[in-house]
């Protein structure tokens, strides 16, 4: 308030002659143009740590990095007559093949003799067919002219075999049809994900034991005292309390659970009867405490060209490089070379593009706590075809054979990745297939999961798997399996990196009493309370070790993880005894290596 100091207030009678006497007032306006100045308003202590933390918590930019250690066992030998493939195998039956191929004999230092081009050669595709970065850019007749299979472009060295992306789970697919088998038995399930987990009765009421025991083909996630809601009912009752877990076998408690046999009769709990169940924590409040089951769906959020894959320094895995020298006279093209069965390199994957998670929610509508390195088989060289999808429980063999799930006629195992093809002059009209690259916004299935609103916790029941198998037109595995369901290799496409953490405790409260209930909290109509887990700030790790703390600089978060990428064979075939699956394999190293070979 500003007042002119020269202002004087005089009596009303003195304003002019015979002025009347009146009361005088000063009207002080209510309109405020001022406020009280609080001390320290203009003196702020700047804390570098505080400013850093504020910036860190506000940042939604991520630059995830992983180091891939590849574990691969080249397990399937086969045969091929296609010249570019044939000339580049890791031979396993070279002497026999050479005898047939060079039917007039073949010795060193002599002009190459006549050959029988219809003789297939046996061996493994070399490791370069599976490696993350192909380096065989100079192989004449294969990657370089003349008569080559593909003209190698070095810019594509990292995308010929695999492509890499960042993805996140963005919704749930409750209607995915799944299938599983119990190894060694004829028991097989086909169910919809939302139905829960499959089981069969291991020890039924017909055995007259005190407990009825169930077995699942995947981990059940139950605890003693919890309940299972079965897909079948006994006199209208579907809820049964779990009385014990496991049998005498180590680790069986994860797959086997029992309920008390209080004298059940009939065939509901008969041995080998099967069905599905859902986990219920509290029978008195099954509406809130029953679990949901679904398949996570991932959305790709980076372009393929964003991925930067490089050698991880000099790191190599402990299994070493498995290679040998192919001797000139034991090759179909009369060329000595090194062939590599399994490699040992590690790779580092980063991205040229930033990942901004602002506005992204996970499949439960919560803030993202995980990003995924999604690695997809591309197979541009055409050794494989018709990639399949499944889950870890589909990788068990069904009486020594691949599960029927993987058959190419099973539409439920189709991957959501388009397959393309090309032909080559020497291959005629027969196609070489490969998988197209994905783009941002592409969606893929993910892990089979359980979610419980009461727990506010998501459990991965079984990891998502892809199966790649050879294209029988070009590389034939000799066994009695149908061509539509051959052995193949599994890999896990989605590998997580944690970017944030939810608390290990659960908050509960009503909106009347608690401020700051997050929008992802679950509202229980039974208790009229919200339930949620707090989202820990970046850099905070609680006494139980829950939380994340990774570098923050350049205004971005730098989460890192080590990833072991397994390319796992489904089963071993028998290199020299194809007719008898399961017999003792013949040692393929019976050709003794010379002390000094032609490759040195």
């Amino acid at each position, binding site marked *: 308030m500003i007042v002119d100091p020269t202002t004087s207030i005089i009596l009303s009678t003195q304003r002019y002659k015979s002025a009347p006497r009146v009361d005088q007032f000063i009207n002080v306006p209510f309109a405020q143009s001022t406020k009280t100045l609080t001390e320290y*308003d203009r003196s702020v202590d*700047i804390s570098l740590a505080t*400013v850093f933390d504020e910036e860190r918590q506000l940042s939604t930019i991520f*630059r995830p990095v992983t180091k891939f250690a590849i574990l691969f066992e080249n397990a399937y030998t086969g045969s091929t007559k296609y010249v570019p493939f044939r000339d580049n195998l890791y031979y396993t039956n070279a002497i026999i093949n050479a005898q047939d191929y060079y039917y007039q004999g073949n010795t060193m230092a002599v002009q190459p003799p006549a050959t029988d081009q219809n003789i297939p050669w046996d061996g493994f595709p070399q490791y370069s067919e599976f490696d993350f970065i192909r380096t065989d850019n100079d192989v004449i007749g294969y990657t370089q002219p003349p008569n080559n299979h593909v003209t190698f472009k070095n810019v594509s060295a990292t995308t010929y075999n695999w492509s890499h992306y960042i993805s996140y789970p963005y919704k749930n697919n409750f209607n995915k049809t799944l299938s599983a088998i119990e190894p060694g038995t004829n028991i097989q399930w086909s169910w919809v994900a939302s139905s829960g987990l499959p089981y069969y009765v291991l020890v039924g009421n017909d055995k007259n034991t005190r407990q009825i025991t169930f077995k699942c083909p995947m981990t059940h996630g139950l605890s003693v005292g919890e309940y299972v809601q079965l897909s079948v009912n006994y006199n209208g009752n579907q809820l049964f309390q779990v009385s014990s877990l496991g049998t005498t076998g180590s680790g069986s408690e994860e797959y086997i659970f029992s309920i008390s046999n209080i004298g059940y009769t009939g065939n509901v709990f008969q041995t080998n009867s099967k069905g599905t169940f859902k986990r219920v924590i509290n029978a008195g409040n099954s509406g809130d405490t029953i679990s949901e089951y679904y398949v996570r769906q991932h959305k790709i959020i980076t372009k393929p060209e964003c991925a930067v894959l490089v050698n991880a320094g000099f790191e190599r895995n402990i299994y070493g490089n498995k290679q040998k020298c192919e001797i000139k006279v034991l090759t179909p093209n009369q060329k000595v070379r090194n062939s590599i069965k399994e490699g040992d390199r590690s790779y580092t994957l980063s991205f040229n593009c930033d990942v901004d998670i602002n506005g992204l929610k996970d499949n439960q509508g919560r803030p993202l706590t995980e990003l995924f390195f999604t690695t997809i088989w591309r197979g541009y060289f055409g050794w494989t075809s018709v990639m399949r999808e499944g889950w870890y429980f589909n990788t068990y063999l069904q009486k020594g054979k691949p599960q029927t799930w993987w058959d190419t006629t099973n539409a439920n195992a189709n991957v959501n990745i388009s397959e393309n093809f090309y032909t080559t002059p020497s291959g005629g009209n027969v196609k070489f297939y490969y998988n197209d690259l994905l783009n941002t916004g592409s969606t893929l299935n993910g892990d089979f999961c359980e979610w419980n609103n009461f727990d506010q916790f998501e459990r991965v029941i079984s990891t998502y798997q892809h199966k790649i198998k050879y294209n029988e037109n070009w590389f034939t595995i000799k066994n009695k399996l149908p061509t539509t369901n051959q052995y193949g290799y599994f890999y896990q496409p989605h590998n997580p990196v944690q970017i944030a953490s939810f608390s290990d405790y659960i908050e509960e409260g009503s909106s009347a009493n608690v401020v700051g209930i997050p929008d992802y909290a679950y509202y229980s109509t039974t208790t009229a309370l919200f339930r949620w887990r707090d989202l820990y700030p970046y850099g905070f790790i609680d006494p139980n070790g829950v939380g994340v703390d990774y570098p923050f600089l*350049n205004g971005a978060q730098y989460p890192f993880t080590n990833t072991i990428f397994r390319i796992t064979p489904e089963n071993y075939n028998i290199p020299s005894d194809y007719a008898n699956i399961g017999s003792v394999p013949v040692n393929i190293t019976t050709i003794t290596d010379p002390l000094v070979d032609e490759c040195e």
Partner: protein
Amino acid sequence: MNANKIKIVKTDLDGFVNVPINMQWDFIGNDEAISSYEIDVINEVINPVADFEISRFAHNVFPNQDSAINYDFYFYDDSAPITANTVGNWGITYLNEGFSVKDVYYYSKPFTKSFFKLDFYTTKEEKTQQIYLSIVLPVQQGSTETVLLSPQLGLVEIKKPKMKLDYIGDKEGFFIYWLRNRNFIDINRFYMTAKFFDGRTGIFKQMTNTQQNLITPNKFNFDNSNYFYYRVDLDYDNKTYEVFSTATNQRVGDANTPIKFYEYVNP
């Protein structure tokens, strides 16, 4: 303040109202100004968040999808003085530089400690230019030539300064690692020069983009901006770079038009 209750009645004295003007008042709106000022001060004191992250810029593919970048480094054979007729005295060989066949073949220390250094400047004007990055090309990279090691040991393959850099194989120096965010330094064009560090003598040798004997009118006194540089353009969207001749503005670097650098010879 409740002004309506103030009532001043007549007395025999002049009446005054003392209105306190103690500075316990502040103009509304200053809060926001202070907050804004606070950010400025913090930025001044602590430094603002700046993105210094680098990205890998690869050599852009040519229309034939070839991604390799080719460098040819020519050294002058000092056995003859430089004239308009000594065209052939430049060769893509370390032998011209003074290394022996044994130095190169056996990877002697002076040889392996030698390297090419590519410097990237903001402009071609030496008085105003700034160097922002350098790339070192080790002599262990490159193709080979066949030479006689000795009458007893015969012909051998030794390294020569002709490099084909790509995603795989020889890739040291193939990528340019540069700021991915343009907020800090907004630059998409560099001018590249080359120097050779001779591990025998410990000195750098400047290189030109043209054979010195072809430089007219004076091969020892010329405009540096025309003969020392290649232009390098960055593409931030695709994270690639391309190299152009400063003389022709044509793209260079493929197998047919390699980037050529010639040893500069002092008069």
